[in-house]
Structures are given as C-alpha cells and as structure tokens.
C-alpha cells in the first residue's frame, strides 16, 4: 500500500505527465520499497531514536526496520540501547562533536559504534549487516531529508512544476533571518 507521501509524489508526477499528454511515460518506479508486517521496535529503542534525531518525528517504520537489522549484528542490543540512553545526557554538554565521540568511546561497550550506526541509519537510511555489507532500509523518509524538507525534495522526487527552481523557496526571507 502506498504511504500518503508516496501516493502524493507519484500522483503529482503522473499528473504533470498526463497534462503534458505523455501518459505512456508514466514512471513505474515508486518509493523505496515499504516493509510490510514489521513488528514495532521496543519502546526504549524508539525513545533513543527520537533523542538521536532531535525529536524530528523520525519514521516509525524506519526505526522498526533498523531495530530488526541491528539485532543480529549487535548481540545484547537492548542492553546497549539502555546504556547509550543513559550515556547521552553525560555527553550532551560537550560542544566539540569529536570530543563527544571520544567520550562515548571512553564509556566502552561499543557505545560509540552504536551511536554512529543508529545515526547513520536514521539520517541516511543505511545499515551495515553482519558481513559488513551495506543495506538500504529507508530513503525518502530519513531524518536528513526531514531536516531540509521545507525547501528541497529528496533526489528523484519533485512536487513542483517545470521551472519552479527559478524562484527561491517561499520561506526564503524568514529562513534567512532565522538561521
């Protein structure tokens, strides 16, 4: 079943093509393949994912998929999640991110590795499996694209019309003043 976003995006592209009189070119590709029947991730893992992604509203399907992928890679995952959750407040005040990483490394138990793995998955949608092979577990809903969603779509998507790019995003003036 298409998500709301997937439906919207594919419908928009399709509408443009139909208007242009080229229905035979309607793209058959859809969004990154959704996962069906995935069990919900444990609550502590979801809480950690929310903290690591700055409460951006990270996709729950992505979180569940990530948990499922990490279980065989990191034995004792739930315990490690608990430790990382407890460690985060201790390192949150460190302003230099490199020193923060070092502090997590100093905590031991592979917390730095877990921190990087979860952030990579939440923000980039990739996770390395037990054999070190990289897998894609998400694309258009990853946190990185959520962070910039008010001015740009993930590559390969377009909800604008031809030449929309000539104008700056509509929030331009406010954004420039705020950041």
């Amino acid at each position, binding site marked *: 079943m298409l998500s709301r976003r997937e439906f919207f995006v594919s419908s928009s*592209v399709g509408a*443009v*093509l139909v208007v*242009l*009189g*080229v229905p*035979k*070119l309607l*793209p*058959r*590709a859809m969004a*990154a*393949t959704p996962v069906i029947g995935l069990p919900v991730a444990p609550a502590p893992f979801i809480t950690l994912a929310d*903290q*690591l*992604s*700055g*409460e*951006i509203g990270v996709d729950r399907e992505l979180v569940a998929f990530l948990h499922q992928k990490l279980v065989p890679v990191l034995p004792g995952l739930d315990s490690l999640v608990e430790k990382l959750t407890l460690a985060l407040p201790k390192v949150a005040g460190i302003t230099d*991110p*490199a020193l*923060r*990483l070092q502090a997590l490394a100093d905590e031991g138990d592979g917390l730095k590795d877990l*921190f*990087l793995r979860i*952030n*990579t998955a939440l*923000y*980039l949608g*990739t996770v390395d499996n037990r054999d070190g092979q*990289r*897998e*894609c577990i998400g*694309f*258009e809903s990853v*946190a*990185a*694209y*959520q*962070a*910039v969603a008010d*001015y*740009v*779509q*993930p*590559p*390969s998507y*377009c909800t*604008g*019309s*031809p*030449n*929309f*790019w*000539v104008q*700056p*995003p509509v929030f*331009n003036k406010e954004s*420039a003043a705020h*950041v």
Partner: protein
Amino acid sequence: MSNNSSTPLSADVVIIGAGTAGGAAAVKLLRKGLSVLMLEAGAPLDQGMVVNNYRNGAYKNNHMAPYPMMPWAPHPNFIPHDNGYLIQKGPAPYTAQYIRGVGGTTWHWAGQAWRLIPNDMRLQSLYGLATDWPLSYEELEPYYCETEIEMGVSGGGPLAGDYGSPRSMPYPMDVLPLPYAFERLRERYETVGLEILPGPQARNSRAYDDRPACCGNNNCMPICPIGAQYNGSMSVRRAQSLGLNLISNAVVFKLETGAGNRIEAVHYIDENKQVHRVIAKHFLLTANAMESVKILLMSKDDQNPNGVANANDQVGRHLMDHPSSAVEYLADEPLYFGRGPMCPGSINNTRDGAFRGERSAIRVDVHNDNPTRYLTEKYVAQGYYGKELNEKLKRDAERFVLLKSMFEMLPDPENRIVLSDQKDEWGIPKMEVHYRFPEYVHRGYDACRDHFAQCVSATGGTEAKFSERGQYTNSQHITGTLRMGSDPKHSVCNKHGQAWDHENLYIGGTGVMPTAALVNSTLTGVSLSLLAADSIIKASV
C-alpha cells in the same frame, strides 16, 4: 563456447553497440532505406526498474549502482570497491564509468550537450599543441544540428547566444532557465570576471519527442525518473520502430576480415555462451571508446596481426578524459542548491585564449546536486546528532556550493588501453589502462585554483575545501582511443570515420575525437557517428 551453425544473420549495416552513437546512426541509416542489425553486449534497461534500484540502493553516490551488470557484459565499478574490470597500470588512475546495456552510458549522463568551438579543432595551428582535426568545424556543424534534433537539446537564449559555436539553425528548444542559486552566483561571480551561463542540455524545456518537460527531480545522474532527459535508449527505440533488428546480450569478440582486408563478419557470444556470426556490407563500431578498442585488439588474424584497424599500432592510444578538480564551501547567503536539473549552468569564459599554448583551458561546472546526503555523511561521522545536527544540516545545505572544473588533456600515445591476460567470466580479455597527467593540466589546475579562490571570496565563502594539485577525478568523457586524422600512421580512421585499413569499417562515438577539447563529449561523439553513417550511406549508393 560452442558455435551456432545456423545460417548467419545479415544486414546492409551491422552496428556494434546500442548507445546513443549507435542508436542515432541507426535511425539515420534506416531512414535512408538501409537494413540495420545492432549488437549490444548488455541487456535492455527499464527506466522504472533503474529508479527503483536507485531508491533502494545503499550507495546513492555511485551512479553505476542502479544499473544491473550481466556476467557476460561486466562494466567498471569502483564503489564500495574496485571490481577489477579495468586493470589500473597508472601512474594515475583512470576510473572510467560506463554502462553496458541498451541505451549505454547516457542513462546516467548529466545531459550537457555542448558543441566544440572552432578553435578546439585547431590546437596545433593556433597554439602549437597536439594535433588539428582532419575536418573543420563547418564540416561537422550539420551533424551537430542533426544530433541536437535527435536528442532534443534546449539551449541558447539572450544570455548565452551560441556559446561561441556558430550555428546554422536554432536550438530545437528554448534554454532551460537557471535556478535561483545560479542567478545569485552569476551576479556575484561577475564581480571577479567569471560568467555563469545556462548551458545547452539534452533535456526538455517543453514536451518534445513524446517526452515531458523537466520538472526538476534533481536526479539526472544516475537516472532521470520521468524521461525529460534524453538517453540513448530513446534513439534505439525509434530505430526499432523503423525496422532495426536489435540483438542484446550479444558480446562481439571478433571482426572477421576477408579479401582486400574488408570486414566480412562479426562474431558474438551470447548469454548461453553460444557463438554466432553476422555478415553485412558495412560495419559501424560504436561500442564506446574503451570497449570498441577491446574488440579491435581482440580481432587478430593473419592480415592484421596487431588487431583490426591497427596496422600502425594506434588503436587504444591517446586515451583522454577531462581531469577535474573541485572546491566546496559555504556561501554567506542561502542559495538552495538541489532544486532543478543537476548541471544547468557553468563558467565558460575561461574556455579559450592564447594561454592555451601554455596551460589547459578551464570550464567550471556549478553543481546543482542536492547536498543533503553528502553533508549528512560528513556530520554524522564527526559526531553531530539530534537538534544540533538538524539545524547545522539545514543551515549548511542551504549555503553549500560545489564547483568542479574540467581540464583539457593532451593526446599522449603512452596513455593507452591494452588487452590483459586476465579474462572475464565469458572468457573475454579485460583491459589494462595506462594513464598519466601532463604538466599542461597541472598548470591549468593552478590557474583554476585562483579562479576558485576568487569565487569563494566573491560570495563570502567559509570552510572552503580545495582538491589537491595532481589529484583529479575522471569526468567520464572517454576520448581519443580511435582517433581520426589525416595521416594513417598517426590515426585509426579518416575524416569520414572510415578505418584506414578496412574500407567497409566505420567508427563513431567519442573515441574518434583527436583532441578532447573542454566540454562534455557526447554531442560531438554522436555527431561523428552520424558523419560516419553519412559515409556509409554514400558508399551504399
């Protein structure tokens, strides 16, 4: 490998390679009433499948990743690691990327459809360097027009005019307007004498050829999801509608010669390791500037002990590309790159001048890639997370600028492709690549470094990161290995694309270019293929 003993296939013309050079030539030949059979090593490719592969792929920075590789038609791949298809002999790497499949590498090109300027073809006469082309710009110009119509090129306009490349007819479509970011940079770079122009693109600015106008999916590489950008499969499809006999998964490994050293047949091996023989009156080789070389070098016989078309040991030499340097930085204002087509404009007023006698000319592409993924990878690895990461990402992605240069390589006979003793799964030899950069390019880098610094300064740039002198990336503009010329001792084919050694063998594509110039080579390579097709038509009368 076993032989299929049935009656050989035949046609007036056999084209080897189903990329844009072969596809466009097939259309032209078929329209003139010739029968055409096309052999393609790889498989047909489906746009929807490739888009799906991209979205579900783990290596989105690898433009080759979405394209399936058949065991009988391997292609180079370097991410996450070198698959060893091209054997690098150095001293510099030559990390070519090309697709073996129906439509060829234009599936993931940027769509930049530049013509050469007349001076590009007279380096020896004007600057005392390299070699002159055996034909003039005026002779090539009609074929440029044909190619632009076949592809559907948008370009020109009041700002860009003809880009210094005289035209006998207008562009098929109006130029695509520059994105907001480019207009801002255009205004600010002008203060240091660098001029951004909207480039010619094989991308629809309106509905054209039953394809829609670009709506800015910002994914020209590795795949345009809506077909607004031209690729070679569109010409192949058109040729099929005109009667083309396309055989995919057909790996050509030998050109057979006969009386008078004419080409009598081609031999190919299929996905079931069955060998077939195809006969024709004329043969057109458009299997890209590396794979074509391989076929010729493999085709050794008593008459041609160095391989076909290689009596003077020129096949595979003079390998070129456009070495590229880069700068990235954060501008002092939001620019919002990542909206619109990926390479819609560039700096071109550094492309020609008396300095070409001393150092490479320069073109600078302003990249409109969505920078979000690149910056995220960097910041996550550095230890950013949470709200801090989200805010930094948004702020920096809005201001991120990436400029990439192109330098002009000079033809060097020692930069070359030779056959390796190593073989692929179908028993076909792999290629060894020998490659080095001349001082001419390094001096071009020095000049470009200054331009880059000016650009950074003109836009209040911070966190600038310049690529290193001598560390250049390929632009995937493989050129020179089958070059045309006026002297058989120093070239593979004549000004008509006809092999010096075989009167019924013609060569098209970018390998035929005797110098690489400074612009994306596809439009020129296809135009040379159409010129060769014209030669075949004249020879068929």
